[in-house]
């Protein structure tokens, strides 16, 4: 009789231990799920911040390019302009762009005349200025940012030299890592 009591008691004890183990596992699982939920919310916020920061950096880069001496009009055109690009200089730069490898951390730099409107024609030394797209660097693109600029060059009519400026977009593209 006493042996039966002992056996029953030990079985009850084992049951209680098992119940405790399952409960502990359930609580652990619960906290793991809560932790994953919190982590995923924080991480998604982090990704969004990184994307916004990258976009801001890219916009700053477009502005920086437009004002850099390789692109900017400087004082070559009357009435010193900001966001003005010297297209004569840029066309020469295009021919020597290999010397600027890795200088600007971008895949693609393109200047596209948007007014007056005309059919798409890429610029070269042969057809300039009867063209509207100057592709300075061509690479793989996954993200693109642009800014409006004045695109200016020297022209002459009847032997008189004047500044001709048109509305264009400076487009900078890079490979999102």
């Amino acid at each position: 009789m006493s042996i039966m009591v002992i056996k029953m008691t030990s079985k009850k004890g084992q049951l209680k231990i098992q119940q405790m183990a399952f409960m502990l596992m359930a609580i652990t699982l619960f906290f793991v799920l809560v932790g994953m939920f919190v982590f995923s919310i924080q991480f998604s916020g982090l990704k969004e911040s990184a994307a916004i920061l990258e976009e801001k950096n890219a916009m700053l880069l477009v502005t920086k390019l437009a004002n850099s001496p390789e692109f900017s009009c400087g004082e070559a055109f009357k009435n010193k302009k900001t966001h003005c690009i010297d297209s004569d200089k840029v066309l020469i730069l295009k021919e020597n762009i290999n010397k600027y490898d890795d200088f600007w951390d971008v895949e693609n730099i393109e200047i596209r005349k948007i007014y007056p409107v005309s059919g798409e024609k890429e610029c070269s030394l042969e057809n300039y200025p009867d063209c509207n797209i100057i592709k300075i660097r061509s690479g793989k693109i996954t993200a693109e940012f642009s800014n409006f600029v004045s695109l200016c060059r020297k022209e002459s009519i009847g032997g008189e030299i004047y500044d001709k400026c048109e509305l264009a977009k400076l487009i900078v593209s890079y490979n999102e890592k």
Partner: protein
Amino acid sequence: MLQKKIEDEISDLNQENLFSDNCPSESVRVCFTSGLDCDIVVNYNAGYVDKDGDRRYFHSDSLMYAAVFSEREIYECQLKRVMQRGEQLALLYKDKAQFISRAGCETDLDQDLLELSNLQKNLDDSQDLDGYMINLADDIDTRNNLEECQLW
């Protein structure tokens, strides 16, 4: 005049760790005239900075501050980078001068720009920042400002 100019520039930077007077005792002292107890001596007229037992040369205030604050290797390396970019820009403007002649814009700067680019290319360290290159650059800039078709 120089003292006032430097003091104004330092105060305009609004940096907590830069003092033009009442320097804390453990400060690094930068002197613009010879004197005792100077860690760095700047000879503004001769265009050099003596720091850490060596001399680095500068032209313009920008390079002066770079020479004062930088380690020697970093200063010399960054100066070479600036010269490399200057070389490419000089060549770019030389080619531009030839290119815009088709629009009737004639300049006679291309040969001097080529010479300037060669001087910048051959600069090994700040000692090569001599008066000839600086004067050539200034001369080209002055002549460009007088051109009907300015290159920059």
